[in-house]
């Protein structure tokens, strides 16, 4: 048997080898690979998210502008779905069976064991109908969340809209966002997204093999509660915002109103706008495409990204800089023979006023006066050459915010246009002089400003020399935090005393019979302002008005631009006057109410034929009478046009 005894080792060896194979495989599974560890966690661990409500936005008087409305997402856990009446579910949530299959397949691809969204944002009604039957649909569950609701449907572009995060947002957020989260995509929602969004809550739940929850993971050590976004108080006044939007119906343009003392934006109208409620809910995508395709680009935020030549509304700055530099005094007069010769071309006035001083020059919007002041500024002897004089002038103008971003708390602000002397040298060669750029004196040429910048200039004049950065959000959270930037005064380096004569002129522009905007005088309120008519290379001139009121201790500075609406006195000035009156007195005095209603109905969209505008003065007697003096303005526009074309040809 001895020879067979050795077979013991063969048998034992075989046992050993086989057991080593087992250990080898175990070594691979338990030590080398972490695949099984991860699989086991995904088996039992489910993260249940609760979505926070975004912060509510109030207007300056505490009225709710943006609130939240509950919606319900239908979720599905594919591996829990058992046979059920598919058709019933489809009918309840309003989809067809093909749509059902598509959604279900998508969910299966995402995860078999984790809930994925089946249908988003069911309305309360659908949810109620579904809730009763939910037990018939094993594997389906409903997750509540909130979406935005705008009770007054105002200020669409101001708020911007909120949307589910895109894959790119998720990538950019470096892990903060998950599919299904919401993010502000424009306007205040974008600018203040981090404050408004709140914090998502998460519950780490353990599930057993039958998918019955078995309590929280590690006694909820890693769980968090959802935290709503911070409350935000906006600077808007809901009433004048609403009125502004109504007045701008069927018109293209902007309104910006600022409280001079604080820089708070009271009204922020961009027309055409859209109902912000359309950018919420299941139709968001379709509505977006619809609004996107409409005429005149409703998504364009004109108050901060629309460029307009300031035109005559720039003239107060001429006077202010002239006074500060000492080249003119309030009483200094020039002769207006109906125009100004700049070298070999003529800047025409719409009047022949003869001797004209600062106050009357502004009230009458005298181009000649403005050109003389500009000439004096450019030819000061203290500068070695006119280029240096221009540099000084440009820096002063820039202080008023033209060609500069004002850092408003809204995305996509543009800075406008103001040339440096170098840029002129590049354009005109070495030998340009003040006559070459004389159109700057009357706010034309290489100068563009946004409506926000125009309103801010009015705030500066109202404050007699400084402004606070305009902003849309007054305070944040329960503690009413105000950003430091928004209490700091930015001085424009013009002595307060120099503002008085300029304000006098602007007062006359509205309140004297010879003023260009006297049709827009507000009973019992002394509004100071300046009309402007801005040449538009693409069509009819734009109507511009800037102003502030009341004269003493001003409460509102305003800029109104109505595109293609002709002279400033026709549309922009009355609209500004209605808003100002409404804001200051709380209502609109007697006879003017009819004008407001008339104005709301006016359509000056680019397609609309001109005669409609000419009908304007006929609707009420008072308007007809008062409108007469302003009739001179349209011709002034053409003069400006001629000037412009004359310049470019020479």
């Amino acid at each position: 048997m001895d020879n067979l005894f050795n077979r013991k080792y063969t048998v034992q060896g075989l046992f050993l080898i086989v057991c080593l194979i087992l250990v080898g495989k175990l070594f691979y599974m338990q030590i080398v690979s972490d695949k099984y560890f991860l699989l086991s966690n995904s088996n039992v661990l489910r993260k249940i998210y609760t979505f926070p409500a975004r912060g509510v936005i109030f207007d300056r008087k505490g009225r709710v502008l943006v609130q939240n409305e509950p919606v319900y997402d239908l979720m599905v856990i594919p591996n829990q779905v058992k046979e059920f009446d598919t058709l019933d579910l489809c009918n309840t949530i309003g989809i067809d069976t093909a749509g059902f299959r598509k959604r279900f397949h998508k969910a299966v691809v995402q995860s078999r064991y984790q809930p994925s969204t089946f249908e988003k944002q069911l309305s309360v009604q659908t949810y109620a109908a579904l809730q009763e039957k939910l037990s018939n649909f094993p594997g389906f569950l409903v997750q509540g969340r909130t979406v935005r609701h705008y009770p007054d449907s105002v200020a669409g572009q101001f708020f911007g809209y909120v949307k589910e995060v895109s894959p790119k947002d998720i990538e950019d957020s470096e892990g903060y966002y998950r599919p299904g989260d919401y993010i502000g995509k424009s306007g205040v929602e974008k600018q203040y997204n981090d404050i408004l969004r709140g914090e998502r809550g998460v519950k780490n739940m353990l599930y057993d093999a039958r998918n019955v929850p078995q309590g929280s993971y590690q006694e909820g050590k890693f769980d968090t509660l959802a935290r709503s976004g911070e409350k935000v108080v906006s600077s808007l006044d809901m009433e004048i915002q609403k009125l502004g939007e109504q007045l701008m119906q069927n018109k293209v343009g902007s309104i910006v109103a600022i409280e001079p003392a604080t820089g708070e934006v009271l009204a922020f109208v961009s027309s055409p706008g859209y109902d912000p409620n359309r950018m919420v809910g299941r139709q968001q995508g379709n509505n977006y495409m619809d609004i996107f395709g409409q005429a005149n680009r409703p998504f364009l935020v004109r108050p901060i990204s629309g460029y307009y030549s300031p035109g005559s509304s720039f003239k107060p700055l001429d006077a202010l800089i002239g006074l500060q530099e000492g080249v003119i005094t309030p009483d200094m007069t020039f002769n207006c023979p109906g125009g100004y010769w700049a070298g070999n071309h003529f800047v025409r006035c719409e009047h022949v006023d003869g001797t004209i001083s600062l106050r009357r020059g502004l009230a009458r919007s005298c181009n000649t006066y403005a050109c003389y002041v500009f000439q004096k500024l450019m030819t000061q002897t203290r500068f070695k050459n006119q280029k240096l004089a221009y540099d000084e002038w440009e820096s002063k103008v820039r202080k008023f915010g033209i060609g500069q971003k004002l850092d408003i708390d809204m995305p996509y602000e543009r800075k406008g246009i103001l040339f440096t002397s170098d840029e002129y040298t590049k354009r005109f060669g070495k030998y340009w002089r003040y006559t070459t750029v004389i159109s700057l004196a009357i706010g034309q040429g290489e100068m563009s400003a946004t409506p926000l910048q125009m309103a801010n200039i009015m705030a500066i004049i109202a404050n007699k020399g400084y402004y606070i950065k305009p902003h849309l959000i007054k305070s944040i959270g329960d503690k009413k935090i105000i950003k430091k930037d928004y209490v700091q005064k930015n001085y424009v380096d013009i002595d307060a005393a120099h503002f008085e004569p300029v304000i006098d002129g602007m007062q006359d522009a509205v309140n004297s019979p010879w003023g260009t905007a006297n049709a827009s005088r507000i009973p019992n309120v002394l509004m100071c302002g300046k009309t402007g008519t801005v040449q538009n290379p693409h069509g009819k001139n734009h109507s511009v008005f800037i102003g502030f009121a009341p004269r003493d201790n001003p409460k509102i500075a305003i800029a109104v631009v109505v595109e293609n609406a002709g002279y400033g006195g026709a549309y922009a000035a009355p609209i500004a006057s209605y808003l100002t009156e409404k804001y200051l007195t709380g209502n609109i005095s007697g006879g003017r109410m009819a004008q407001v209603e008339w104005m709301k109905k006016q359509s000056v969209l680019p397609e609309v034929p001109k005669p409609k505008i000419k009908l304007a003065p006929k609707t009420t007697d008072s308007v007809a009478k008062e409108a007469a003096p302003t009739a001179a303005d349209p011709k002034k526009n053409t003069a400006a046009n001629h000037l412009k074309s004359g310049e470019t040809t020479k």
Partner: protein
Amino acid sequence: MSNTQSNRFFFNVDWITVLIYMALCTIGFVNIYASIYNPEKSDLFNFGSNYGKQLIYIILGLILGLSILLLDAKFFSVFSPIVYGLTLLLLLAVLVIGRKVAGNQAWIAIGSFRLQPSELAKFGTALLLSRYVATFNPKFKDFKSIMFAGLIVGLPLLFIMLQPDTGSALVFLSFMFPLYREGLSGYFLVIFLGLIVLFIAHFLLPLYITIPAIILVGCFFIYQNKRKQKMMFSITIATILAICYLFMVKLIYNKVLEPHQRTRIEIMLGLKTDPKGAGYNVNQSMIAIGSGQALGRGFLLGTQTKYGYVPAQSTDFIFSTIGEEWGFAGCTVVIGLYVFLLLRVINLAERQRSTFSRVYGYCVASIIFFHVFINIGMTIGIIPVIGIPLPFISYGGSSLWSFTVLLFIFLKLDSNRMGFI
């Protein structure tokens, strides 16, 4: 029995083996407790629960084992034909009156007690085979003795196949080892292993790869033995037989095996991935074991175990609990204990004077080995799902007692190794 006799008797018992036995039973109890642990009802000595029952089974098993030690060693040899005949009868009876459990007609219910004759058949066969070898001392060089041994093993195997209980039937292949030890040609072992390898290859590779591969291997051996004509002839025959075998497997597989068995095999070989279907058990078991990592998630902390992800976890898949809660360390300890036990039993077998005891020892080691290999192999996905328990560890009285009896009969024989049986 006098005092001195009794002292001598206890002195002779291999207590190391008993210790390993008790260690494995304890590990079994702890992990059964973990796999049916419920935080709301965590009474360690709840005898209504399965771990409570297992505790009773273990105690009764120990008593059973100790009483076997008190029997006369000659008893087993003498009564082996009767035990064998009795098990055959029971196997026949189970075919007639057996209860269906999980598709198999494996159980006979006697009151509340359920008897699984296939468990008894293992040591009945082991006893008779040992008796046969001890009595006739065949060297398995002639056809007659091989046939006779084959008959002893084959009869119960056939009946068990008819139940059908493939798992238990497979275990009967373990008698190959004692026969090999007693003289059966090594070729049988090689052929046996070759058949298994070919069987698996058949599923993994298409015929147009396997057949040329077999021919290539054949040619290689012919080239190696080109001087020996006789060898060349046998190799050619072997090659042809191997190819025939492949076709036969294909035929049996497609015509004879039931669909669920087919899917099980296919999933094990990675041909089908269907985590929720027949592969679900294995998949979850592998997740449990793999997630244990080096040191395990800790006692009662395995999430796969606690939350019932692994079906049949206290019985056939008990190893997944060990893997998850005790990690690689725990697995290695358990496998190490088995290896130690197997090698120990073989060593003990070799020190027997009586052929009966030696053959029986080999039978015990081989049966335990097959169970361990198939069971653990199944839980880690290298063997198809074959429902056989892990010796001493899996939940269940029937399985625990039959292994206890199997092992303790050998310990009794060993304690008596100086005497002649």
